[in-house]
């Protein structure tokens, strides 16, 4: 019995026997089903999928918008993160402080508050009319602060002795970044970066607050039209999982592949 539900203590590579994986997996699934069945039976929820199904195009449209906004924000956030990480390592102090302050402000305040301030104050002041553009910028700025920390940690993990070797060889500074730091940092930061991108996708749901017609806002609207809460929000959860789960699995895969001894 034990062998179906427990891992060997001396199992170094963390492999799980197929029989144990199936047994334990099914057990968890059964328990979760029981829990959900209990919850729904208690609230006696009257399902009305037909009303929501009529609005299926709205879900697809919103989902696609979320994909588009997230993809654009990912690219921009990567750029912001990279520049900030480099700025935090420069010898020019004002730039260094600026990067530090940006990072601390973003990481220290709620994203919702940032969206509101950015949308109603900053974007207004600069005359940015397009709310989708505003959404992408603020999402990228938010995520960029976290990405800069990931990249900085990656760059700093490259040992001093390697940089010395590279210098002694006669590499220029850009060459050191290009041939020594970048390839190694890429391997190291890909897993946490993938995780950050998954977060970014989820965080994009908050953009509904400034009426960006993305996935969450569309689901809210369907709910308002049909008064069918769960039928609107369950597909919403599913839609996000559809995006974040593959990224999460891919990140695990990368972690395994790049785990080389140094």
């Amino acid at each position, binding site marked *: 019995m034990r062998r179906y539900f427990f891992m060997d203590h001396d199992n170094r590579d963390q492999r799980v026997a197929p029989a144990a994986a199936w047994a334990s997996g099914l057990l968890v699934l059964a328990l979760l089903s029981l829990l959900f069945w209990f919850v729904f039976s208690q609230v006696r929820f009257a399902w009305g999928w037909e009303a929501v199904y009529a609005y299926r195009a709205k879900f697809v449209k919103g989902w696609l918008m979320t994909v588009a906004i997230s993809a654009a924000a990912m690219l921009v956030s990567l750029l912001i993160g990279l520049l900030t990480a480099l700025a935090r390592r420069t010898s020019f102090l004002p730039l260094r402080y600026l990067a530090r302050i940006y990072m601390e402000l973003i990481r220290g305040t709620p994203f919702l508050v940032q969206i509101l301030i950015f949308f109603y104050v900053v974007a207004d002041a600069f005359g940015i009319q397009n709310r989708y553009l505003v959404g992408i910028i603020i999402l990228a700025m938010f995520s960029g602060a976290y990405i800069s920390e990931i990249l900085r940690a990656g760059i700093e993990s490259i040992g001093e002795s*390697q940089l010395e070797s590279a210098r002694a*060889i006669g590499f*220029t500074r850009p060459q050191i970044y290009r041939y020594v730091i970048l390839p190694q940092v890429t391997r190291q930061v890909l897993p946490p970066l993938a995780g950050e991108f998954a977060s970014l996708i989820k965080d994009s749901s908050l953009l509904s607050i400034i009426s960006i017609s993305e996935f969450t806002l569309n689901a809210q609207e369907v709910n308002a039209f049909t008064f069918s809460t769960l039928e609107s929000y369950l597909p919403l959860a599913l839609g996000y999982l559809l995006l974040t789960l593959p990224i999460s699995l891919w990140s695990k895969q990368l972690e395994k592949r790049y785990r080389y001894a*140094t």
Partner: protein
Amino acid sequence: MRLELSAVSKSFGEQAALRGVSLALADVGTTVLLGPSGGGKSTLLRILAGLETPDGGAVLLDGETMEYGEESLLRHRRSIGMVFQSLNLFPHLTALDNIALPLEKVHGYTPRAAAAYALQLLERFQLANHARRTPAQLSGGQCQRVAIARAVAIKPRLLLFDEPTSALDPEMTVEVLDLIAELRQEGRPIVLITHEIGFARQVADQLVFLHQGRVLEYGPAARLFAQPRTAEMRVFLEKVLRY
């Protein structure tokens, strides 16, 4: 190679590493820097490698004064082969690529020529079997030998070794020292810091004894080993030769 230093000084904050070092070696041959830790050996070697800029004084290689602009330093570093104590190699590259990369990116070889020449060197140093392995798959001694191959590959005018065996166990130490002795046989100018005093005795043509940032003695190794003039060097030799 002729090496002259005049009043070379270097401080790190409050800490004076070199306090006016002067010497003149008509022929570097194999020069061993000797002395207690913190005496300034590493700093001196790093200045010769162009990795550290002295606060004052002049360094002359074959009569040519070293300059410290970024351009000059870069050119200088590219003419010098340097091997550190450990972790010389880039962990994401194979042994072959570790040697070929600088040839290609710094010395203008085509990728194919760089790889061919790198392989040729690995063969010469009996490392050809390891060409496709990354540093993590090599022993410490093999890594150091690949690092030496990389330093030699650029046809340097001077080879510098900063305690190349002090992170190795005795067996591997021997294989690295053998290789250095072989390079000496080829007549390459070498400046070496080592704690392997027996090896130093065997290969050193010139000896420089550094103590608290000063050169207390220097000259032909045989004479210095036999008759150290200063009390500091006598005490040092007595200690390192005791066992």
